[in-house]
C-alpha cells in the first residue's frame, strides 16, 4: 500500500516565496494543573514545508485545534517550541492568518472594513488598505458586497470574507480551524475548490484542521491523523493526487486508497481506545 501512497506532488504552487516553514519541536500542551490537569497534546514534533497544504484530521476533542492554536499563538505549549520561519511563536500575529469555524467577522464593520482592518493595523493608509481590501474581496468574488454588514451575508460568503481578511495581511501561514464545518454540503464543496484556487495562486502554507476524511484527502498534500486523549499524530500520510484537484477525483484509485487508509487508521485507533476503556 505504501508505495501507492508514495509522495508525488505535481502542480505545486508557483507563488511560494519560500516562507511559511513551521517547526513544531517536542510540543506538549496541558491545560490546568494538579488532579484536574488535562493533557490536550502529547509530545509532538512536526515539520511543515513552505507552501505545503497540510490537513490535521481527527475526531472532535483530539487536540487538533489546540495544536493549531499553538501555531497561532493563542495557546502556549507546556513544553517544547513552535517556530515559524525560525522565529519562536509567542503571541498571535498577522504573519499567521487565522480562519475560524465560527463566524468571526466584526459584525459592526462592513465586509470591506473587515478586510481592510489588518492592513490598517499594519499602518497602511486608508487608501492603500482600501485597495488591498478590494483586491482580496475580488479574489473571493465578493467585491460588490463590500458595503454589506457580515450578518447580511450567508455563511459561505462570510467564510470567504474571513479568508480574504486573513490573506490581506500577506501571511506566510494560513491557519484554518474547521472553517467549512458549519456549511451545508454543496457550499462546502464549492468553498473547498475556491480555497484550492486561492492557495494555488497565493502559495502560502496552509494548516487546515478538519474531522472530515474526504475534505482532508481532497485538499491536502499531506494528512496528519491525530488520535484523542492525549492528542498525538498517529499517521503522516502523503496524498499522491495531482494538482489542480477537481471534485471528479473522488473516483480515482489513489483517492479511494488514501481515504481508505485514513479511515483504517482512525478505526484501528478508536478500537484500541475503546478496548483500553473497557479493559
Amino acid at each position, binding site marked *: 500500500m505504501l508505495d501507492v501512497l508514495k509522495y508525488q506532488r505535481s502542480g505545486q504552487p508557483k507563488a511560494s516565496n519560500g516562507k511559511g516553514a513551521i517547526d513544531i519541536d517536542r510540543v506538549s500542551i496541558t491545560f490546568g494543573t494538579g488532579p484536574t490537569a488535562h493533557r490536550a497534546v502529547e509530545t509532538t514534533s512536526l515539520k511543515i514545508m513552505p507552501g505545503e497544504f497540510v490537513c490535521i484530521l481527527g475526531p472532535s476533542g483530539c487536540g487538533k485545534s489546540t495544536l493549531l492554536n499553538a501555531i*497561532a*499563538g*493563542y495557546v502556549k505549549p507546556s513544553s517544547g517550541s513552535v517556530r515559524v520561519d525560525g522565529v519562536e511563536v509567542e*503571541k*498571535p*500575529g*498577522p504573519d*499567521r*492568518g*487565522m480562519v*475560524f469555524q*465560527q463566524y*468571526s*467577522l*466584526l*459584525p*459592526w*464593520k462592513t465586509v470591506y472594513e473587515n478586510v481592510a*482592518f*489588518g492592513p490598517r*493595523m*499594519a499602518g497602511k493608509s486608508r487608501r492603500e488598505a482600501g485597495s488591498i481590501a478590494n*483586491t482580496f474581496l*475580488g*479574489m*473571493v*468574488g465578493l*467585491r*460588490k458586497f463590500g458595503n454589506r*454588514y457580515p*450578518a*447580511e*451575508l*450567508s*455563511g*459561505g*460568503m462570510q467564510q*470567504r470574507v474571513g479568508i480574504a*481578511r*486573513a490573506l490581506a*495581511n500577506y501571511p506566510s501561514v494560513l491557519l484554518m480551524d474547521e472553517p467549512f464545518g458549519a456549511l*451545508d454540503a*454543496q*457550499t462546502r464543496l*464549492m468553498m473547498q*475548490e*475556491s480555497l484550492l*484556487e*486561492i492557495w494555488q*495562486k497565493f502559495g502560502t502554507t496552509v494548516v487546515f484542521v478538519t474531522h472530515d476524511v474526504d475534505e482532508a484527502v481532497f485538499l491536502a498534500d499531506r494528512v496528519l491523523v491525530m488520535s484523542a486523549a492525549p492528542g498525538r499524530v498517529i499517521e503522516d500520510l502523503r496524498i499522491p493526487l495531482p494538482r489542480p484537484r477537481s471534485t471528479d477525483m473522488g473516483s480515482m484509485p489513489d483517492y479511494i486508497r488514501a481515504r481508505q487508509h485514513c479511515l483504517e487508521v482512525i478505526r484501528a485507533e478508536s478500537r484500541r481506545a475503546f478496548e483500553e476503556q473497557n479493559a
Partner: protein
Amino acid sequence: MTQTADLLDPPMADDPAPRPAEPAPPAARRRLVPPEKLREIAIGAGSLAIGVALWHWASATNLDWIVDFGNIPGPGKVFAAFWGHLGTEIFYTHILVSMQRILVSYLMAVVIGIGIGVMMGRSRFARACITPYIEVLRPIPAVAWIPLAILMWPTEEASIIYITFLGALFPIVLNTLHGVEQTPEVLVRAAQSLGASRMAIFGHVVLPAALPSISAGLAIGMGVSWFSLLAGEIISGQYGIGYFTWNAYSLINYPDIVVGMLVIGFLGTLSTAAVRVLTAPLLKWQKRTR
C-alpha cells in the same frame, strides 16, 4: 485575478440577491407607517381611551371598592387644571428646571458610568475593588439618600443632582460591564491575528461589542434618573416638576398632583425615547441584520 473572480463569481446557491434599487414602488411610498404598526397604534389608543373612561366612571361614582376613588379627581378636572397651568409661566419653569437637572446628572452618569463599567470589565483588580460598593449602594432607594445628601452637599441643587446621578449611574455601570464581558472571545482572537494592539482591540472590538448592552443601560438609566429626580426634588423648596407635585399634595390640590404625575411620566418617556434615537446610529449594524 480575473480568472479567480470568474471561477468564484457565478452566483453561489447561498448568495442573497443584490439589494433592490433605491426608489420604492409608489404603493409602498404612500404608506409611511406599515399597516400592522397602524393597527397596534389604534389598539393602544383604544385601550388608553377605555382606561380614561373607567377612571372617569370610578371618580364620578365615588367608587369605593378595594381602591377608594372618593378623593381622586376625574380626568376632566385634571385636564382642566393642566390647561390652566399651560397659561402660566411658572409651570414651564418647573419643567425646565427638572429637565436641566436631568441633563446634568444624566450626562455625568453616562461618562462616569461607562468609564467604571469598562474598567471593571477589563481589569479583574478594578472589578474586585468596585463590586462591593456597587452591591451595597445599588439597592438603596433614592429617597433614603435624601438626609445624607443634604448633609453631604453645600446646596440643595447639588444634593438633587447627586441623587439623580446615582439613580442613573448603576444601570449604566452594570450594563456596560455586562456588555464588555459579553465580547466574543473569537472576535478578540481574530483581531489579535490581524495585528491589532490592545488599544485597537478595545476600540474596534470590545467597545462596539458592548454598545448594544451599553445603550440598553443608557435607556434604563434615563428612566431611573427621573424617579430619582422626583425623590430629590422633595428637598427643593422652589422649582421642579417633582416639587410641583409634592407641593400640590401639601396644598391639598388634588388635580395638580395628577397633572404633575402625568407630566413626569410623559417627560420620562420622551427622554428615554430621545436616548434610543440618539444611540440608534451606533447600532445600525444590528438593525440591518434582520
